[in-house]
């Protein structure tokens, strides 16, 4: 154990089964810790067994045979500081022969099981030009070689920061090119916090959902609206949320929204005990319990159907028993299906009950679908004086949304925005912006809902109380 007998909160200790993020340099990968399971990361394979019991944030070196060796010293000894250095590069000629070690030599060194650091040392010693390089160039050279030959991996606890960075770096297409600073804006503009009831519609692999859940900390409820057959939650799983977080998570299919709004959501088809209007408030409070009981059921069922299978594989019995077994499994399957249906029905009615109150505290949209119909429809479930935020990779659909919302009313404080993100290299005498910056992190439309119902009796139409502004909107630019 890495903790010297001191009391450390066990949340900070890596356990078998934990969802973790591996880091090497600025590359990340999310994995689940499973003993004796090979993991491939950055062209290397290894086992995570040795990480169990260590603290989150520990660094490891990949040894031969794929085992991880915890690194004891935090600061690696810098290769014997070469104090000699040149002033400029007027005499450095690129003849392609400055490195005396050949490709094969390096491979041999690697095969001998030499540590990355030692290889870097060898490269420095065998470089004829190293001594003539400027101090800065030497540092840069070492840094570059270290990156290539040192196999140091850090194991981190997943968080929105890390997973958003990871997805943006590895699979931006899966998250609609949502950059992490844009995600940060969404969470803040949406006033996402513990205790609220938030509607989320996303096709970002569950990253946005996970980010919202993290900010809510298991308090309140999240209703995920999903397209197609079911919600995608690959990224959400990577957060490794505790069980009680999942009790606050609900889901509702987008294809039933119209029925729900019209009050024709078929109870026979999807939920007998589905909601009737006045009971909605009451159901609202019991929805959490409903979902939790559904979860328990699922757990029980999992336990049930895993045991017979386990036995089967261990004891192979004669043929007649085989038939019996098959029969029983068939029955089990039917039973299982029934339970699943029942569970699904319960889940749906719980989510419907939450939505039906039409008093959600926020709406977060980030999808590959056209945001306009999504926003106009889902806003009807949101209470007045609540923020909403819509992400789109492109600006034009949000311009349309903006115009439609203005026409329709019911919202104020509309804001179309984008953020630019710039990273800096900060080093003594070498501080400057990083060469590459991301060209597009997407656009956000945000605003606040208002209560429009009273305006019917009022003399004016529901618009922003500054008619001058609206006129200005239409004015052509000079």
């Amino acid at each position, binding site marked *: 154990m890495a903790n010297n007998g001191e009391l450390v*909160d066990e949340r900070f200790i890596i356990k078998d089964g934990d969802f973790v993020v591996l880091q090497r340099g600025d590359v990340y990968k999310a994995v689940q810790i499973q003993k004796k399971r090979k993991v491939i990361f950055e062209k290397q394979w290894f086992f995570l067994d040795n990480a169990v019991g260590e*603290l*989150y*944030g520990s660094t490891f070196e990949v040894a031969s045979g794929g085992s991880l060796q915890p690194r004891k010293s*935090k600061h690696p000894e810098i290769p014997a500081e070469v104090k000699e250095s040149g002033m400029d590069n007027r005499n450095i000629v690129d003849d392609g022969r400055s490195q005396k070690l050949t490709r094969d030599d390096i491979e041999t060194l690697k095969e001998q099981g030499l540590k990355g650091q030692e290889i870097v040392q060898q490269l420095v010693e065998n470089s004829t030009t190293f001594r003539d390089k400027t101090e800065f160039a030497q540092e840069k050279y070492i840094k570059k070689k270290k990156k290539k030959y040192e196999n140091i991996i850090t194991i981190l606890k997943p968080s929105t*920061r890390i997973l*958003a960075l990871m997805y943006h770096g590895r699979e931006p297409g899966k998250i609609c090119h949502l950059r*992490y600073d844009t995600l*940060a*804006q969404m*969470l*803040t*503009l949406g006033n996402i*916090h*513990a*205790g609220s009831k938030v509607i989320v519609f996303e096709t970002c692999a569950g990253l946005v959902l996970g980010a919202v859940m993290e*900010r809510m*900390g298991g*308090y309140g409820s999240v209703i995920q609206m999903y397209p197609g057959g079911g919600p995608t939650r690959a990224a959400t799983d990577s957060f490794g949320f505790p069980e009680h977080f999942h009790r606050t998570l609900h889901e509702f299919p987008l294809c039933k929204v119209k029925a729900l709004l019209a009050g024709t959501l078929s109870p026979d088809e999807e939920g007998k005990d589905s909601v009737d209007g006045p009971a909605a408030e009451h159901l609202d409070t019991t929805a959490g319990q409903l979902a939790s009981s559904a979860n328990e059921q699922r757990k029980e069922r999992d336990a049930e159907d895993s045991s017979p299978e386990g036995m089967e594989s261990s004891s192979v019995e004669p043929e007649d028993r085989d038939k019996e077994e098959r029969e029983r499994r068939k029955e089990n399957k039917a039973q299982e299906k029934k339970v699943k249906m029942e569970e699904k029905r319960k889940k749906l009615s719980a989510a419907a009950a939450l939505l039906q109150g039409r008093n959600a*505290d926020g709406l977060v949209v980030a999808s590959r679908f056209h945001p306009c119909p999504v926003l106009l429809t889902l806003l009807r479930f949101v*209470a*007045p*004086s*609540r*923020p909403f935020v819509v992400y789109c990779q492109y600006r034009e659909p*949000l*311009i*349309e949304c903006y*115009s439609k919302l203005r026409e329709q009313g019911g919202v*104020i404080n509309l804001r*179309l*925005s*984008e*953020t*630019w*993100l*710039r*990273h*800096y290299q*900060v080093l*003594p005498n070498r*501080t400057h912006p990083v060469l590459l910056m991301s060209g597009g992190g997407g656009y956000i439309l945000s605003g*606040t*809902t*208002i*209560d429009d119902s*009273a*305006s019917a009796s*009022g*003399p*004016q139409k*529901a618009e*922003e*109380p*500054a008619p001058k*502004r609206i006129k200005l*909107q239409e*004015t*052509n*630019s000079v």
Partner: protein
Amino acid sequence: MSFVEYSELIQEGDVAIIFLGHDSMFPLMVQSGAQTQTRYGVIRHSTDLIGRRYGSKVTCSKGGWVYVLHPTPELWTLNLPHRTQILYATDIANITMMLELKPGSVVCESGTGSGSLSHAMLRTIAPTGHLYTVEFHQQRAEKATEEFREHKVDHLVTVLNQDVCKDGFGVTGVADAVFLDIPSPWEAVGHAKSAMKRQGGRLCSFSPCIEQVQRTCAALAEHGFGEICTLEVLLRLYDVRAVSLPLPDFGPDDPSRTDPGVPDRAGPSVPTNTAVTCRTAIAPREMAGHTGYLTFASKSLV
């Protein structure tokens, strides 16, 4: 009402945001019997506000109307009384995510300033987290304490009136995150480290000048912080408008076909459609080009 919990109806003692129009809002404390003047006329708290739903339209005495909004840290940031330069939502959003704040987080902050970031942090770490905020200016510390009480978040925050560079945060080994917005953050890095939990945590320092960033980064490296990263986020706001682009006139289709003897009756051709209108988003003529550099770092394991 509370800054960390939504409520449906406006009650006495609430802070409500009166929305008069785009870019025109102000906060008010709801008190029965009180009146507030606006350019649309007077708002009578007892009849116009108390008991009504947040988000309602309120008709003022002159027939004009306003909306009453539930307070949020973001609305507060736009409306708070400035005692210092403040942080705005764009930077706050990044600070919150990059510091990995969430319900239950314990955070140290200095200085408190006008409390713009403090309110956003409290919103995020509620209901189980805690904020230790240090402000060396006595009057500002007192004013912040008073505001936290008015906003019903005082149970989540401890305000300390001392010099963070000399005396630290008043706590050790408890913080998940530390935020510094002071002129010489490098002098507080050691205190920040000792305020943090043994197993590590995140740090952020906000500085307008690059020289401050350099000294801070050097101090962070010296104290063994890892993952040091400096970034800057710029907000671009767009105005949605309909613009019209006039179409150029290239003359009639085939000039050779017009009879030279007969002068063109219509004169120079006048197409019916001389302009195309399109909806677009226009970037402002001027925008905030710099607020401050955000330097983040992780306290590594010891």
